[in-house]
């Protein structure tokens, strides 16, 4: 082994490294593995170099062992990389031959003829197999480039898609925020509307309430005054020498009866005020005992007098048909009251409209506006009917009456919430049912069923 051979080996080593860099596309390797691969040809050259030495010393044996282990290690470590297997098919036989040669010549000595034969074979093998691999690699590279291109195109479209998705997401987020804000505003408006509807119906009630309170209050005053007179009369009677006990007894009885009337009318006024307060207060949502017939009667009168106070020309007959077996039901007092008020006010409104319409055509003869409230108990259900002989409704109107804000009244006269709220109260609040039967020009009946 002379110096020219060593230089030759080194140059060959560098050429192989260059070739491997290119063939194995070394950029795909991480730095450590790339370094291993670059050292590998020198390991093989080292092995060849050791093979040239005819006598093995301790140092050459040691070097051989390390170079051999190094090659094995690189093979194992890189076995999964692309094209690495091919390289080992290319160089493997040569490495194996070198190993055998080193071992055999240390035992039998070097046989130049056999070595030359093998070396010629390996030169042919390496060129032939190397050429084949090169062609394969070129094809592979073309395919890979096409793949790469496709991948890039895919990547690009993925990126542009992601961009679009991001834009849309931002838009949707913005819309969601706007919607949330609208929702909050709507909720605020809704509660405001519920409040104003309540206040509007309370306004309608006020005059009726004033009248309803004024009447019992007058009786309280009148009978109290009367009792004062009667007691004075009794005193005068008692002072008489000839006392008329029968008359005294009569006076006492009158006083007693009058006191009962005072109490009755006092309670009547009390009930009305309580009802009014309950109506304006926020619903407690709690079910309590309700005397349904009394409640219906109370609101019928309130609605009547309320409308009467607002419109002097308004007049209609009130008719009631209460089934005493209805008695006490469980319900939300104030809510049921509102339903009565809404339905009865509507009934009075429609009969009044019909009357006005007939009056315009001078055709009122024979028309008696009448609103009827009736109650019945059927099995475990209480049925309330509120009927009028007003204008009735077309099917188109009938379909919409329970929708919020739907009203047939002129602007400013109805909130359009009365029936939708009544519907909510009966169905959601009391698990009941509210139905409507109507015929245009004939009248309307609302039928409420509340399970008990």
């Amino acid at each position, binding site marked *: 082994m002379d110096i020219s051979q060593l230089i030759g080996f080194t140059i060959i080593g560098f050429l192989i490294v260059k070739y491997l860099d290119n063939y194995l596309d070394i950029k795909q390797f991480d730095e450590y593995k790339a370094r291993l691969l670059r050292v590998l040809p020198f390991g093989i050259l080292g092995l060849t170099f050791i093979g040239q030495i005819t006598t093995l010393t301790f140092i050459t044996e040691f070097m051989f062992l390390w170079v051999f282990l190094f090659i094995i290690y690189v093979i194992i470590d890189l076995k999964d990389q692309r094209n690495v297997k091919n390289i080992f098919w290319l160089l493997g036989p040569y490495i194996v031959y070198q190993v055998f040669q080193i071992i055999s010549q240390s035992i039998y000595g070097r046989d130049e003829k056999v070595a030359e034969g093998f070396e010629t074979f390996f030169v042919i093998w390496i060129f032939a197999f190397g050429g084949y691999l090169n062609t394969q690699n070129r094809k592979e590279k073309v395919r890979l480039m096409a793949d790469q291109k496709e991948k890039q195109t895919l990547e690009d479209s993925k990126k542009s898609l992601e961009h679009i998705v991001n834009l849309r997401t931002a838009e949707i987020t913005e819309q969601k925020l706007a919607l949330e804000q609208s929702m909050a505003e709507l909720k605020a408006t809704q509660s405001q509307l519920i409040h104003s509807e309540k206040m509007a119906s309370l306004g309608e009630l006020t005059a009726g309430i004033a*009248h309803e309170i*004024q*009447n019992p*209050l*007058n*009786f309280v*005053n*009148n*009978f109290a005054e*009367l009792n004062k007179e*009667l007691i004075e009369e009794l005193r005068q009677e008692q002072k008489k020498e000839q006392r008329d006990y029968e008359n005294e007894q009569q006076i006492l009885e*009158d006083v007693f*009866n*009058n006191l009962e*009337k005072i109490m009755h*009318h006092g309670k009547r006024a009390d009930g009305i005020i309580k009802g009014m307060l309950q109506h304006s207060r926020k619903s407690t949502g709690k079910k309590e005992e309700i005397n349904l017939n009394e409640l219906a009667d109370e609101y019928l009168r309130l609605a*009547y*007098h309320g409308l*009467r*106070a607002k419109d*002097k020309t308004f*007049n*209609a*007959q*009130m008719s009631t048909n209460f089934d005493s077996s209805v008695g006490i039901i469980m319900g939300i007092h104030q809510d049921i009251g509102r339903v009565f008020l809404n339905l009865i006010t509507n009934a009075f409104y429609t009969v009044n409209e019909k009357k006005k319409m007939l009056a315009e055509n001078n055709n009122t003869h024979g028309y008696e506006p009448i609103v009827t409230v009736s109650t019945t108990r059927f099995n475990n259900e209480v049925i309330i009917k509120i009927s009028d002989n007003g204008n009735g409704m077309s099917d188109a109107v009938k379909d919409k009456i329970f929708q919020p804000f739907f009203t047939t009244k002129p602007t400013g006269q109805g909130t359009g919430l009365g029936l939708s709220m009544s519907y909510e109260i009966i169905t959601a609040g009391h698990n009941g049912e509210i139905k409507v039967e109507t015929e245009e020009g004939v009248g309307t009946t609302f039928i409420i069923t509340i399970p008990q």
Partner: protein
Amino acid sequence: MMKILVVDDEQDIKDLFEQKFRKEIKSKELEFVFTFNANDALAYLDSQNSEVVLILSDINMPGMSGLELLKEIKIKSFDPNPKIFMITAYGDEQSHRESLDLGASDFLTKPVNFIELKEKFKSILL
């Protein structure tokens, strides 16, 4: 004897009047007839009109109102034509003017001042 027809949907008005005017009723100066709606009042007048000297009518009643009753009575023109006093819980100007325009003799607001009412009865009797 002066017969007075009282028309009011409040039934306790009967007890109130009968007690307030118990002396006049006892001495047969006055006689009261009560109906609790306008239709009954008209029916009573149709049958016994000659006896009724004065009608006291509420305005706000279910069914036919007091003002409508007043109109009807004026149209029917009974003989002798009874005087009509309208009584209402609403002392509003519109009802007052309307009542007088329709031919009512007087317009009273509730609560009724009975001393004043007695004076008015006396003036009619005289």
